[in-house]
Each structure stands twice: as C-alpha cells, then as structure tokens.
C-alpha cells in the first residue's frame, strides 16, 4: 500500500494541475527575511500544551467517537465492520500522511500543492535538539510566512488528526456494503489525491484559495464539504443497500450513536478551538460559538422533527448536534455568539430536511448521511461565515480590519465551496473507478445479507 508513493505523488500533481482553476501564481521567493531576524522563534509552552491536548481531542473524534457514532446506526450484523472502517482509516492515513500527505499539504510548493521536502517527515526533528524548541513557521520563506508558537511536530500531528477524520466521515455513505480491501485502497488514494491538495489550497499560505481570502477556520471546505461530496459520489456509484426501503434498517444501538456524538462534540473543542493554534482569546471564542451552534442545531432538528413527525427522536437530536458542529466549523474563529446561534439553527433545520426529505426525493442511499449532514452542513457554514464574520476577531496589526462578513466575502466563500465540490466530486469518481478496476467495490448480495462482520472479518457481536 505504501510502495508506489512517488508515482502517487506524481499523479496527484498531474491531476491537481488538470483541475487547477485559475492561472499559476508565482512562488513567493523573496521576503523570508522578516522571520529570520532576531534568532529563531521560540515555542510557547501554553500554546503547545493546548495543541497537544487538541490533537488528542481530535483523535478521540475518530476513534472511538466516529466509530461509535456510525456503528450505532447500522444493523447488528455490520457493527464491527463499521467500527473497523474508522479504526483502519485512522491507521492508513497516519502512514500516508507521514509518507507524503503532510508534505503535499503544508510545504510551500505552488498554489495547488506542496512540494516533497517533507516526504517521510524528513527533517522534522531538526529544531528540537538540546531543548532548543524552535517554533514552526508555516510557509517559511514566502511572504505569507506565518510564525507559529508550537513545534512543527505538534503542528503536523494536529493536522494529521484532521487528515484522519475526513476520509473516515465518508465511510458513512457506503456503510453496510463496501469491500474492506476496496475501502483500504480508496482511502489511501483519496487521502493523497483529494485531501492533501485541498488542505494545501485552503490552509497553506501559498494555496490559491487561501490567497483569495476565503475563510475556513477549522475545515468547512477541507473537511466537511470535501467528505460530504465524496460520500455522495460513493453512495451514487455503489448503489443502494440490498433491501433499502423494504427491510427494517433500524439502528442496532442508538445508545452507541449517542456516545459517539457526545465524543464528537467534546473532541470538536480540539478541532475548532485548536484551530486557533494557541491558547488564547480566539480559541476561547471558537469554543464558545462551537458550543452554542451545536446546542442550537440539536434543538433545531429536534423541534423540527417534533413538529413534523410528532416525536423528538434521540437519533434526531444527536444528528442535529453533529450538523451544528459541522456548520460552525469554518466560522468558529470568525463569528460571535449571535452569529453562532443563527448558523446552528439553520444547520439543524436544513440538515433535518436534507437527511429526511431531500435524500428521499433524490433517491440515493447515503446510509448514514455523510452528505446530508457534512456536505449540506458544511455548505451552510461556509457560506454563513461570509455573512457573520466579525472583523475584529481576525484583526491583526497587519490587517487591522480583519475579515468582516459581507457580500464580497460571501462570493469568496462560494468560490471555496464550489471548487471543493467540483474537485472532490470528480476526483472521488475517478478514484472509485480505479478501485473498482483493481478489486471491485461491493460485496456480493448474499454476503451483504449475511452481514459484513462475519463475511469480512469473521467476527460478530453477540
């Protein structure tokens, strides 16, 4: 799985070029002077402490958070296989990220992807010796260099946990029917060819989306829209589950899903407040708006369901919470509590409609609503960030107004959304085709009826 990495790297490059929308930007060569002045920057222990913690919190989101959230919603015969997906993706992406993903995403490269200077994390230990603890500079040597207050290992690890959860979210769309081998191959390719480039666009100072000024604090485009649209493609290509619409597909244990959603919530504090890359006022505000939007969205979905279906379901409340978490993600470092409550309610109500009506109308089988919650929720959040962004939160001495919301920003946000949808959608289709050619995508019908736990892993829950 890890052998042909350079060739993957190359194809990534080529594909990225293929879909690159605007023209190439110049690789900012000058102006590395600023950062070099006055000795190397030192880390701040408080900021580092919070980022180490945030990394643990975001890992907690995937294992066991997402594993439980998803496993609780499938049928008994697929519970273990579903957990296995999250767990295995966590392992695979760790290695992919170390080998090349991080380098593609966060080195300077060009506007569309990074270079290969950090392949195999080459050189990442350089700044540690003798307790020197030099802080990491993102985009070092470019004129957008951003000096951090944490070591590069911590920055890399924090980003790794994002790289892990994104593909794991996709798995909700093809739950109950994908081959395990296909999943392993698909996820390896997807992480390299879709996640890493988009992360570069949006979060590397040299990325074209970032340079346009699109706002995405913690991953509305990179993580949620990206995973959502990829999930939709998977659901469309793989087709519906056997028995969809006739068999009872009631969740085996909504209790697991509640635990999972709760751990997602808690872990999301690391995700959003951690995206401040420091323990500061912005992190505090990000945590605040995360909490408020989540609660508002859960209540929004709950009341929408209560009114339209007669009962507030537990599954609805937790789905709403996740929708709120998704929607506030891009906005979290940019909006105030007032904006958060609007984003939350919008996410709760619209995702309720997407998961219970839109999906039904369009007739695809996105088993656990990867698109309905992450795709739609992400789009809502990304756009509303352009509306509610409050300038002073992102103000610096260099840019004293920060990035206030408004029509101009909203347009930029739309560009971010559309380019993610297009690139991720198309690339996902291509990768699905490749995977299908290699090992096939779906288990046999009889196997699907028997359940993936026994068929794929030889185990079952009693």
């Amino acid at each position: 799985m890890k052998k042909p990495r350079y060739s993957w790297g190359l194809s990534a490059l080529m594909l990225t070029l293929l879909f690159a929308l605007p023209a190439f930007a110049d690789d900012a060569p000058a102006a590395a002077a600023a950062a070099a002045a006055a000795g190397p920057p030192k880390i701040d222990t408080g900021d580092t402490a919070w980022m180490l913690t945030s990394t643990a919190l975001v890992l907690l989101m995937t294992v066991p958070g997402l594993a439980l959230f998803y496993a609780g919603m499938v049928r008994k015969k697929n519970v273990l296989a579903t957990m296995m997906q999250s767990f295995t993706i966590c392992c695979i992406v760790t290695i992919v990220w170390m080998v090349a993903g991080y380098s593609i995403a966060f080195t300077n490269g060009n506007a569309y992807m990074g270079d290969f200077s950090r392949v195999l994390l080459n050189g990442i230990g350089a700044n540690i010796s003798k307790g020197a603890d030099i802080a990491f500079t993102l985009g070092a040597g470019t004129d957008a260099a951003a000096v951090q207050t944490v070591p590069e290992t911590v920055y890399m690890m924090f980003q790794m946990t994002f790289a892990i959860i994104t593909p794991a979210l996709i798995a909700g769309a093809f739950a109950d029917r994908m081959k395990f081998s296909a999943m392993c191959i698909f996820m390896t390719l997807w992480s390299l060819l879709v996640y890493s480039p988009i992360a570069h666009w949006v979060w590397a100072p040299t990325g074209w989306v970032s340079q346009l000024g699109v706002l995405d604090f913690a991953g509305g485009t990179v993580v949620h829209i990206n995973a959502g649209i990829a999930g939709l493609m998977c659901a469309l290509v793989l087709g519906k589950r056997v028995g969809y619409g006739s068999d009872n597909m009631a969740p085996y244990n909504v209790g697991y899903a509640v635990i999972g959603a709760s751990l997602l919530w808690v872990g999301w504090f690391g995700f959003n407040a951690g995206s401040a890359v420091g323990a500061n006022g912005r992190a505090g505000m990000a945590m605040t708006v995360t909490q408020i939007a989540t609660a508002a969205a859960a209540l929004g979905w709950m009341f929408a369901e209560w009114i339209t279906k007669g009962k507030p379901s537990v599954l609805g409340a937790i789905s709403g919470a996740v929708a709120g978490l998704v929607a506030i993600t891009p906005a979290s470092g940019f909006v105030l509590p007032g904006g958060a409550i609007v984003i939350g309610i919008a996410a709760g109500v619209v995702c309720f409609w997407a998961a219970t009506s839109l999906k039904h109308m369009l007739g695809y089988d996105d088993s656990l609503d990867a698109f309905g919650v992450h795709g739609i929720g992400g789009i809502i959040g990304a756009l509303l960030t352009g509306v509610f962004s409050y300038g002073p939160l992102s103000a610096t001495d260099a840019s004293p107004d920060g990035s206030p919301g408004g029509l101009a920003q909203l347009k930029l946000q739309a560009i971010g959304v559309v380019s993610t949808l297009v690139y991720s959608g198309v690339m996902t289709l291509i990768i699905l085709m490749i995977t299908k050619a290699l090992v096939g995508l779906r288990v046999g019908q009889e196997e699907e009826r028997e359940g993936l736990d026994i068929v794929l892993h030889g185990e079952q829950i009693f």
Partner: protein
Amino acid sequence: MKLIMAIIKPFKLDDVREALTPLGVQGLTVSEVKGFGRQKGQTEIYRGAEYHVSFLPKIKIEVVVPDDLTDQVMEAISKAAHTGKIGDGKIFVMDIERAMRIRTGEVDSEAL
C-alpha cells in the same frame, strides 16, 4: 399435561405472572421474541429512509400445566394480557406427553 404457549405484549408480563400464581402455577418460562401479525409497526423513519417495521417485540410464555388447569390458565392469561388493542397476542395449546424434574427425577404432573 398441556403446554400453553402465549405470545403477549412485553409490558403485560408481570400482570400475567401475577394472574397465574393464585391458580397454583408454580413455574413458567419466558422468552423475548419478535412478532409479525395484523398489528403493523409504526412506519419508522431513520434519517429519511422509511421502513415499515413489521416485527414488534413480544414476550412468549411457555407454561406446562395439568390438563384440568388448561381452561383456567388460558382464561387468566387472556384476561391479564388483554388491552383490547390490536397486537394483544395469542394463546396456543399443545399436548405434552411426558415431563420430568431434573433435580429430583419426579415425572409428569409431579414435575410441574
């Protein structure tokens, strides 16, 4: 002896058990089952997919009684398990040829 097998609504179990004690029924065996019948489950909606839940949780009671108790037991069960709403369940009666208490080796009606 007869085996009386009753399928009832789960929350009626305690009532049924209490109704049988005065008749001298000393033992019974209970299983969790799923029933399919005229009572249709709600149409359940999981995040947009509607499923007709055809199987509903029920309790199966199996109790072996001497022949002469059969009527009374059927009567008692049907009264205690009755709600009048669809899905109340059924009572079936089968013949038991032999019975044995493992602990003592007693057989037939002694064994109940």
